[in-house]
Structure formats: structure tokens, C-alpha cells
């Protein structure tokens, strides 16, 4: 019973197949699943491909941005409306990987991968999940990521989020050993909307600082209602580690990640980030 491949022409059909057969895995960009196939971790069952154009659809012009789960990082890079996300997309893989890797797939990438999900978390994105033939329901990305550790069911059809008022309100900073491209020592995304010179509803997210991308609640609180000055940044740095659970891996130790997180957060906030 070697692997076989099925093709679904609609998302509903795909969701139905996934719901009815536990041994079916969605093959989106292939960067995660095909590696498992090549290395013998995935040996039987069914790979599901989706040809539904909606899977790769983008609505990026309006205030509400909608990206199909099958949208690749290359498509993001080629879309002018999404300029504020280009730095994030460019932080993933090389050109060939970006041609294949999808936003949906990135939501399932385990740490220290998944930098795009970090950005989406800071943008308070909703994940559209379709279970069976019912219509898709929206789940907050944070909730989705928490559920991911327990194993999520259903088909991720896309993500939605409110476009930042000003591109400058959104910042992303990835720390990696290898230039120009490498695994995250950590990545930090921050959405810092600013009303009358004061930050309101700051959302900051970390990658590689926990088993999944996580919110930086301490830093967010420290900045709320403040002007982004040295004092506020100091306060944010002091609260930077709240809620983090970094791991030791081939890239860095837990100790190192904790030690430099405040430094890099400070650089992001003071726009010193490279």
C-alpha cells in the first residue's frame, strides 16, 4: 500500500476527503510533505492536491486582506499591495522554495521555521478552517496555533487580516546565523498602530521563542498608550521574555535566545534592526 495521490477540484471536496480519511494528507507547496515522503517518514496513505483556483486566490486591495492557503510566498512578493509583507516573505527560503512554499503550509511549519506565521500573528490574522462539507469558519491564528500542538482537523482554506493603516506601523525582524538566508535564531513581528503619537493595540509576535509563534504580551502592555521613546522601549525590553519558552536546537541554545531577545526587540522598536 504505497502512497497514492488524489486531486480535489474544489475546497469543499478536499475538506470532505480530509474529514473522511485520516490517512489523507494535504499536499500544498510540498516543502514539508514531500520531504517526509523522500525521507521515508510518510510511506502510505494519500496525498491530496487541490486545483481549486480559490485555493490560490488573493484579495489584497481592500481594508480586509484575504489570502488563499495555497498562495505562495513568491506570489506575496510579486504583489505590490502586500509590500509591508515582502520582507517577511523574503526571509523564507531561497527563490525556488518561495515559488513552492505556501502560506497555509507555513502555519504548520514547526519551530524554528514558520516566520510568515509570526507576521500573521502580529497582524491578528484569522485562519479559515473548513471541516467536512460545512462552510469554513474563522479561527484566531493564536487559537489555531495553540490547537496545532494538539493536532488540528479540517482544511485550512486561507487567512484574513486587516491591512495595517500605515505600512510603517508593521515591522519584521529576523535573526539568523547565515546570510542572506538561514533558520531563525528568532524572528520578531510588530504591528504598532499609533493614534495621536501614542501606540494603541500593539501586537508583537515572536518566532522560535516557543514551540509555536507566540504573542509578546508583556512587551505589548509596556507599549500600550505610550509614545515609542527610549523609556517605552526600555520597558518593552524589560517585559520581552514574558510567555516565551525557547528551545535549545542546532541553531542556538535556550539561554542564548533568552539573552538576546530583549536586545533584538529593542533594535526592532528603535528601528536599528538590519
Amino acid at each position, binding site marked *: 500500500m504505497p502512497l497514492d495521490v488524489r486531486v480535489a477540484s474544489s475546497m469543499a471536496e478536499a475538506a470532505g476527503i480530509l474529514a473522511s480519511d485520516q490517512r489523507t494528507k494535504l499536499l500544498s507547496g510540498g516543502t514539508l510533505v514531500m520531504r517526509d515522503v523522500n525521507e521515508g517518514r510518510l510511506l502510505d496513505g494519500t496525498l491530496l492536491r487541490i486545483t481549486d483556483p480559490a485555493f490560490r486566490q488573493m484579495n489584497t486591495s481592500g481594508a480586509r486582506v484575504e489570502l488563499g492557503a495555497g498562495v505562495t510566498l513568491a506570489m506575496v512578493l510579486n504583489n505590490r499591495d502586500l509590500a509591508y509583507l515582502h520582507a517577511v516573505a523574503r526571509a523564507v527560503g531561497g527563490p525556488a522554495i518561495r515559488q513552492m512554499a505556501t502560506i497555509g503550509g507555513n502555519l504548520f511549519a514547526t519551530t524554528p521555521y514558520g516566520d510568515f506565521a509570526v507576521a500573521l500573528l502580529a497582524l491578528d490574522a484569522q485562519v479559515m478552517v473548513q471541516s467536512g462539507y460545512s462552510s469554513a469558519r474563522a479561527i484566531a491564528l493564536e487559537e489555531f496555533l495553540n490547537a496545532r500542538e494538539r493536532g488540528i482537523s479540517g482544511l485550512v482554506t486561507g487567512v484574513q487580516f486587516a491591512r495595517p493603516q500605515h505600512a510603517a506601523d508593521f515591522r519584521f525582524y529576523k535573526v539568523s546565523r547565515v546570510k*542572506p538566508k538561514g533558520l531563525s535564531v528568532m524572528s520578531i513581528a510588530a504591528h504598532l498602530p499609533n493614534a495621536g503619537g501614542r501606540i494603541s493595540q500593539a501586537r508583537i509576535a515572536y518566532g522560535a521563542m516557543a514551540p509555536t509563534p507566540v504573542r509578546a504580551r508583556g512587551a505589548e502592555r509596556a507599549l500600550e498608550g505610550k509614545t515609542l521613546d527610549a523609556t517605552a522601549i526600555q520597558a518593552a525590553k524589560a517585559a520581552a521574555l514574558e510567555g516565551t519558552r525557547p528551545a535549545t536546537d542546532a*541553531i542556538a541554545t535556550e539561554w*542564548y535566545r533568552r539573552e538576546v531577545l530583549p536586545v533584538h526587540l529593542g533594535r526592532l522598536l528603535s528601528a536599528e534592526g538590519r
Partner: protein
Amino acid sequence: MARHRGRGMASVNYPIGMNLGGDPSQALIHSNPDGKFTVALSAIDLGQGMKQVTRQVAAETLGVPIEDVYVDTADSDTGPHDMGSFASRGTHRMGNAVIAAAREARGVLLEAAAEELEVNAADLVTDGRGNIHVRGAPSRSITVRATAQAAQFKQGKTIAGRGIFLIPLSAVDPETGEMNPNTAFAHACLVADVEVDDETGEVTVLDMTSAYELGRALNPKMVEQQLVGGAWMGQSHVLFETPEPYYPNPDHGPRDFNEYLMPGPGDIAPYSVSVLERPAPDGPFGGKGPGEMCANPVLPAVANAVFNAVGVRVDELPITPEKVLRGIRANGGARPQARRGG
């Protein structure tokens, strides 16, 4: 935040070839009837350029144009025995074996030409452009092509040669370590400029400058390939690489090129090399072989530059940002040392 610049240097030598000898290499050379030569070896080209360097050695020794020689390696049915391509032995050992084989083939070539020109073979020279002529009398000449045809179809001579090069094995004294190791040594001195971030411990190599003495540079372009690629590998060894990031703890071994850290194309530093040529008495045309040593001076030079920048000695490789940061913390902050020129 502060970034500190630092400068370090190191000077090294390197023994060429299997240390104690006893590592033979053989070569066979033969000519087609039109004077085009094939060199049969069992040497391995891993990228270091074995095929081309032996091709140039053969062409030089035979006295024919480079395009008249091709190297065929490695097929155990046609190529004679060779220990292999390691220990920087390829150029030195195989180069000498090829010289030996080419000398023998050249000897037959000149004898055949002498018979055609009715002169003494000892009076003949090659011009390296496919002609053989009497020394001092270029008009009395014959082409290599015509000579090979005459040898094959008139004289019944094989324009061929065989060669072996073997430095006999040396014993090692158990109590003093006395031995006869390599006789050819290459030399180098390298200066590294780095920048160290005292808040994160990150080290950036800004520039490298070196001088290498390699015997004769048989092919400067290929020497450059080795030295530039080797310097990158040295930068990689000293700052990035290891399959056991927390050695001797065996956990967290990298499984792919994402987890196994090496400098990317965005990490490379400008590198300038000067090559000195002090021919090795026993090297092929004095050549030594730069393949292995070219990473070595980079490791200590960068380590010494890190100390010069922030006053931290990291004596365990690789020099990761964590080790540098722990050192800075232990010293109560960065302690930049005296600048050195530059």
C-alpha cells in the same frame, strides 16, 4: 549597542603528501598515431583540479601544446594503481609520476624524430607548439604529428611511457617520534579583520588578507580556486560548523543544510592573496599542493581577531555568538585591545 573591530593573524606551514611516504602513484601515457596524447591515471578529481594539473604537467614534460593532451581518470581497468586523492598528495605524488611517464614517452618521441631527421636524439628539442627541431637549427624540424605517424607506421615504435613515484616508507621511533616525514612544506600567513557585536556576540568577518608560499603555482587560476574556497571553509569551521553543536554532548545534531550552519553568499568577506613560489626540491616543477592547508590559518586568525576586538578568548570551536557573549559577560563587558595598522 556597540560593534567593535578587531584584527588577528596566524602563520602556518603544511606537510605535502602522506606523511610517512610509502604512498605510490602510477601513470601511463600513450600517443595516437597523429601525436595526440592520452594520460591514464587512477587519480580522483573531487573538484581540486586533478585532471587539469596532471594534464599541464604532461604537456609541459612532453613539450607539446596543452590541447594535444587529455587525462583519462579513473577506471581501474585502464588506469594504473594510485593511493588516492587525499593528504594533498595528488599534485606532488601523481605530478611526479606523470613527469616520469611523460619523460619516457618523450624519449621515444625524440628517438623517432631523430630517425626521421637522421640526427642524434640528444640534439633535438621541442618548441611546445607541436614541432621538434635540432637545437639551434629550427629549420631542421619535424612535427610531432609526422613523428608519431612515422613511429607507428614506419618504425614500429610505441610513443608511450609509464611512471611511478614513491617516497619509501619511513619508520617512526616509538620513544622519540623520530621519522622521515614529508620533505615539501607549504607556508602561509593570514590577517583577518572582524567586527563583534557586544550585545549579541555575533562575529562578522570584514576582510581577509594573506600570503601563501606554495612552491610553484602550476595553475594560478586553480590555486586561486583552492585558496578562496578554502578561506571560506576556514571561516565556516571557526564560526559556524559542527555536527555536534554541544560536543561532547551528542544531542541536537543537524540533519540538513538549514540546521548545519555554513556561511552563505551574504557572509563572505573580501579576500586578497599574494602567492610566493619557492619550488619544492622534490615537487613536480617545484609544485607543492595548496588543497588542504588553505582553511587552516583562518581559524586562529579569526579567533585572535575576536580577542583583539572585545578581549574574549574562545578556545573551543566553533566561536558561536553564545560563547562570545558569555565571554563578554564574564569580563564585565567588551575589552577592546590595541589596533594593529590596517
